[in-house]
Every structure is written in C-alpha cells, then in structure tokens.
C-alpha cells in the first residue's frame, strides 16, 4: 500500500516523527511511453510526440511523452481531444505485457541493491536503505539514489526519478521534484534525484499546497480552501482545536502530522497482494425478497466499484471473483467464479458478482453482511489463449469485459481523481443512496 489514507473522523493516529531512516521512492518517468518506445524502436521509438493509450475512437490517453504534455495533454484525456491539442502525435496501444515484464525486471534489479523493496504500483517502488550506511561507505543518500538510478537504467533501459527522505511521505513528494521538467525551485530535474535531508522535512513541506499531500482528496482540499487554507503553512497556522472542529479530531491530527512531514509507515517487502475485497455490514438485516435483493445489488455495485478502483490503481487484473453473504444467523456462505480471462472493470466484477449474489440469495434468508473480493491476479500479463471460433459464429467466446468497459472504468477513475469520489457514479448507486438518505430522514423524524 502506498501512503496511509486519512482516518475517518473519530479515528486517531499517534505517529512519532520518523528519524534515522533512509527511504527512497523510485518513480518511472512516463513509464508506458518509455516501454512503448523500447518495444518498437523504429516506430514509437522515433516519435518525440508520443501518446500511449486506446487507439479506438473512444480511447483515452494512458501516458503521454513530455513533448506532448507541453501541449496540455494529460493522462485520462480522450485521445481525440489530445490529438486536437497535438495533431502530429503518434498514438500507440498500451504494451501491457511488456510493461509488466519491465516492471518485474526493475524490481528484480532493485532487490539486488536494497534490503527492502516494495512495489507500490507497476511503476513505483519504495526502498528502505536504513542501516546500510556502512555498507555504502560514506555515500550520501543522494549519491546512493543516483547510483541506483543509474543501475536501473543500465539493467532495464528505463529512466526513473528518485525521491529520498527519512520517511515514505516525504520521499514520495520529493520524487515529484526529481521528475524531468519539474518546474519548482530547487527541483532535481537535471539529475533525476531529489533528497530532503534529515531534519528538513517540515521546511520542505512548507513549500507545498495542502492538496499535494497524498491522501488529501479534492473533497477535503475544497473544504479547507473554503476556510482559506491552501498551503501547508496556512494549515499549520490554524489552531488545532479549530481544525479538529472542522474536519474531525482524527483527521485533524493526521493532517498536522503530514503537514510537518511526519510519517512512520513502513516499507514492507512481503508477498505481493493476493486479493482485494470490500464488504459491508448492515445495521438491520436485509430481508429476503425483491426489495432486499435490489438493495443488495445496489450495494454490490458500490463495493465492486471500490474493489475495481483498487485493482486498477495497483495495475492488476483478476480472474477469480468471490461473493460472500453472512445470513442473519451468522452463517457465512460464499460463491466463487474463475473467469477464462482476467478482468479489471467495475462492470465485469459487478456482473459476475451479481449472478453469484442471486444464487446465494435464492435461499431466502435475511442478510447481515455482503462482501465481494477479487483474486487470482494475472501472473503473466499479455498471454492470450487464441480461440478457434470467430466472434460472429455461434458458440463464440463471451468476454466478461470489453475494451469499452476498461476504458469507461479508467475514465471514471480519472474523473474521480480530479473532482472527488462523488463526481461520477452510476445512476443506480445515486438512487440507492437517495433512498437510504430518505429512509434515514424518515426514521429521524419519527
């Protein structure tokens, strides 16, 4: 997991300032663009203005080369719009299989260079170098970072930017300053390395906006902005009691810790994640029957969206979908379905889950908990079993997920990342929420 999310109001985080640790974050520069170039040196490799993304009419930009970004093109933008801004850009499809392989190669190289390596996503890696000071004989963290950056480039051909600090939060933010074309003063764009020295975390944070802090979403940033809090110093200037009153005690503590550049979350190598799930316990059991089924299906859609978003964020696709129901008598029942192909879209996760939910609900028992999970992450992305039967023949393969489903989910992710979680929702989820709200109001009134 990358950085911890803000605790919900009421939660509490008691984190001591991290000292004495040496953490690096390696972030690949325009990763998909770099891989596409290496895969097709004569085509994509020669195009300075390169767009990686869906090439169909409705496709979106997954990644754009820096030359194209200069035209205002951003990830998540429809390809058609990107081409209006930069008409002579070359559009190539996402080299998925090659990206996974390249990401593995980077990780393998890093594992020879650092004691603890954690892949936070397909193109981001945390390294914990704490305690290696002697090993690297007087080398500064910045020098180590530069050396590792060089080794990764040598071994895999991929350019990375490296942020360094005494904790993950500051290392991640520092990596932004190390990026090519980083515009901020003191940026490490030249060297690809930016290290915040121990003890200087708070000074570093003071140059940032509150919205830059990972975990501060558009909703929270907007709420704070209404109260005149835009920069980190603005935030620190507010009396803690006031902040607690505005955003809740737990969240206020969390924000202040972050604003001071403190984070003691650990870099954990461990096993890669095996499953992702979300569940919901009902205060009142959901009765059997059509109304209850509709309520659960609406909720299943919300849970599927949450699971789908995490899946895509991690750059995974999953083959096995499991739905879990806990009956009113606490007995837990579940169904699993393994698809012939791995999926990542909300719709596919939901549709497969819904069929199993209906099956589980057929027993006619009241439900107290509903959960959905995905597992069986694709271990060899890009391997495709060819089919004998053409798409228009009887018995043609039924895909659980279309390119359109994937594009839709990714575009929705981008919209949410920019405008907040509620910016885009299926109508069904909106209706479900409206109904629940009105029921709550009714019960409050009575």
């Amino acid at each position, binding site marked *: 997991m990358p950085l911890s999310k803000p605790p919900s109001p009421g939660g509490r985080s008691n984190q001591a300032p991290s000292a004495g640790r040496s953490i690096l974050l390696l972030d690949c520069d325009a990763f998909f663009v770099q891989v596409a170039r290496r*895969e097709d040196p004569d085509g994509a490799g020669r195009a300075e203005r390169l767009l990686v993304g869906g090439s169909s009419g409705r496709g979106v930009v997954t990644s754009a080369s820096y030359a194209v970004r200069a035209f205002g093109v951003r990830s998540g933008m429809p390809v058609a719009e990107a081409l209006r801004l930069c008409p002579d850009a070359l559009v190539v*499809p*996402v*080299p*998925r*299989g*090659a990206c*996974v*392989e390249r990401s*593995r190669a980077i990780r393998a190289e890093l594992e020879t260079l650092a004691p603890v390596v954690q892949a936070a996503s397909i193109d981001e890696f945390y390294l914990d170098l704490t305690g290696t000071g002697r090993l690297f004989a007087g080398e500064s963290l910045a020098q180590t970072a530069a050396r590792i950056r060089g080794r990764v480039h040598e071994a895999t051909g991929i350019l990375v930017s490296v942020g360094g600090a005494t904790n993950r939060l500051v290392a991640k933010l520092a990596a932004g300053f190390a990026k090519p074309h980083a515009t901020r003063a003191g940026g490490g764009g030249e060297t690809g390395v930016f290290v915040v020295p121990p003890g200087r975390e708070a000074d570093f944070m003071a140059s940032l906006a509150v919205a830059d802090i990972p975990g501060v979403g558009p909703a929270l940033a907007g709420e704070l902005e209404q109260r005149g809090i835009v920069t980190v110093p603005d935030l620190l200037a507010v009396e803690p009691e006031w902040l607690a009153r505005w955003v809740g005690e737990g969240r206020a503590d969390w924000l202040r810790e972050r604003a001071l550049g403190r984070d003691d979350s650990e870099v954990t190598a461990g096993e890669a994640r095996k499953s992702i799930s979300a569940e919901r316990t009902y205060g009142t059991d959901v009765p059997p029957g059509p109304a209850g089924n509709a309520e659960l299906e609406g909720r299943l859609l919300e849970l599927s969206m949450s699971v789908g978003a995490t899946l895509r964020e991690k750059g995974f696709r999953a*083959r096995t979908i499991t739905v879990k129901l806990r009956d009113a008598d606490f007995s837990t029942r579940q169904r699993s379905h393994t698809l*012939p192909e791995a999926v990542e879209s909300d719709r596919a996760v939901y549709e497969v889950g819904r069929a199993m939910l209906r099956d589980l609900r057929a027993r006619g028992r009241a439900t107290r908990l509903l959960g959905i999970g995905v597992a*069986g992450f*694709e*271990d*060899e992305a*890009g*391997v*495709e*079993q*060819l*089919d*004998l*039967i053409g798409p228009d*023949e*009887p*018995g*043609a*393969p*039924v895909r*659980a997920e279309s390119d359109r489903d994937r594009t839709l989910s990714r575009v929705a992710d981008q919209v949410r990342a920019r405008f907040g979680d509620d910016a885009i929702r299926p109508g069904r989820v909106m209706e479900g929420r409206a109904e629940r709200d009105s029921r709550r109001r009714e019960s409050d009134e009575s």
Partner: protein
Amino acid sequence: MNFSITRQNLHQGLASVSASIPSKTTLPVLSNILFETSGDGIRMSGTDLDVGVRLQVPAEVKEGGALTAPGKKLQEIAKELPDEMVVIETRGDQIEMRCGRSRFKLNGLPSEDFPQLPQVDFDGGWTADGKDLLSLIRHTSFAVSTEESRPVLNGVLWELRDGEMRMVATNGHRLARMRIPAGPSLETTTQFIVPPAALQQVQRLFRDEDQVTVAREQNHLGFRAGNAEVYTRLIEGTYPNYEQVIPKDNDKSALIQRKVLESAVRRVAAVASDQTHRIRLEFTSGRVILNVLTPDLGEAHDEIEVGYDGEPITIGFNANYLLEVLRYVGTDEVKMSFKAPERAAVVEPVAVGDAEPMDYLCLVMPLRLVD
C-alpha cells in the same frame, strides 16, 4: 408391490441407476429410485431431470405396483447384504426389505411424484455398433467446454451424414473430431448436441458388443441396448461451423514419439504458470526444443528428437491442452502439423503396420503474446 430378487441383481441394478441420481437436489424425489413391476421383473429408474437411466432387472413379482425409495441408502444396504434372496414389499409409502435375518424399512415417496422419463419411440430409431459409439464418445467428449457462457459447447456434436457417424467437441481452445463409417443401415441425416453426462451413462451401461438403438423424440434422445435405457435432454442451439476451423493448409508437419513428447511436456510444464500453463515449442530440423519461462517462478529447457525438416517455427501452447490431446490420440507415433504461430495446430494418430487407421484429429489453438 411385492417381489423377490437376488442380491446381485438388486445391487447391480441399484449401482447402474444411482449413478444418474443428482448428489444435491432441491426436489427430494430426485434422490429416489423409481421401482415399477413389469412382466417378469422390475424396472428401476433414476434421473436428474436432464439425464435419465432405466434398467430392467429379473425378479419374481408377487404383487404389481410402483414406489420410489432413497437410491443411495438402498445401494449402501444392498452392498452389505448376504448373498441371498431379497424380498421387497411396500406398505403405504414405506418400502420394506428382508434378506436373511436383516430387516429394513425406508420411507419412500409415491411413484406419481417421480418425473416421467421422456417417451421415445425406439422403433423409429437407428442402431449403432456399441464399439463405434463408445469409441466416438471416448475420443471426443473430453474436449467439451465447462464454461457456462457458451452453452452449445457444453455438449458433444453428434452428426449422422454421408454414411458416417461423427462426433465433435470443443471448448473453443482445443477440438476433437472423429468419424466412423456407419454401415449401410444408416440412412438418416441428422445432428444433435448431447450433454456429456448422458454419454458418460452410455459408456457405463453399454458394451462394445451391444447393438445400441438410438431414437430422437423432439428435444430428447434415447439409447437402448439389452435391459438398459438412457434418456437425455438435448442442448439447444446451433453448433459452430467446426469444418471451417479445421486447417487445410498446415504445411509443416512433425512425426513425434507420443510418449517422449508427453513426458517432456510434463517435465517442463512443472515450471509453467498455474494460470496460463504456457510452454513454448520450437521446431527445428530434427528436434523440438521446449522452453518455459515464468516470471517469479523460474525456467525450464528440454529437447527431444522428432521427424521434422520444415522451416523453424516457435509456438506457445497451454501445456494441459497439449497433454490431454496426446493422451487421447493414443498411437505410439503422432503427427503434428501447423502453419504459423497463431494458427491451429493439428495432432493426428499415425497407424503402424496393419492397424486400422482412425479418422481422428485434435486441434489445439496456440497461446499468443498480446501487444
């Protein structure tokens, strides 16, 4: 109802019929076997609503009648009874069983509750050699799909045309087709998609030397030989045009010792991904090089000698599909032909000496690296 039956006949009958009983059902009567007296014996029937089995067993009938009783329980009891005559009698909805000094009473359900097996007119049917029928089933039914999303592929296509019986099965990734001349008696031209569960019952109940009468009644098919009958619902829908996918222009072919390839594939597949089971076969002059590289797991390399003198070609396969096909092709030597890395490869048996050649082939679709 009152009849006496030898323990062997009772046990054999129950064992044959209870295989058609569903292990889990929401309709309790389906866990039961229907007993009906008929002429010089009794008839036992079992069904899961899709496939039904009926068996005529010799018995000494004292009083006619019908009742259903729990199949698995009866079978458990019959297995342990001494080898003596068993007397079975009904009292209301209860069945009473006596054998030597053993006595059993089991609660049954009225025979009217039992679903009626399809009425099939065997006089309007045709006959097939048990040996041919069983060989067709054995060589093809392994290839049916178990994916619910493509229901027509959940059955075996059985065609009667041009004086031949053909069976074809596929899951879309690999396909098996076998053809056998049907003899002069077969004039019918027809086709249907049969669930593999029914064919399994046919394999269990009929022998090579049987002449099996087959008849169709609307959406059902019946098989009969000797004292046994199998009924099945047919799968509705149009089967894909399989002829179209069988390559006719595979211009490279290798002659391979089946067991040698089989064990090499099995060896390297140990390192293949659990999901894709991907292995690579590289055909070069006189050799096949097998390679597996699975990220996070490891790699394997192996080589075997084969008869091949075509252009070098590398094809990726799901090892499981390849192993399965090799097992069913069966001959010591097999011919594998292909055209390109993304086109279907064909595996066929190679008959040696006087052995009768089989008109049998299996297709395996390769794995491709996308992007």
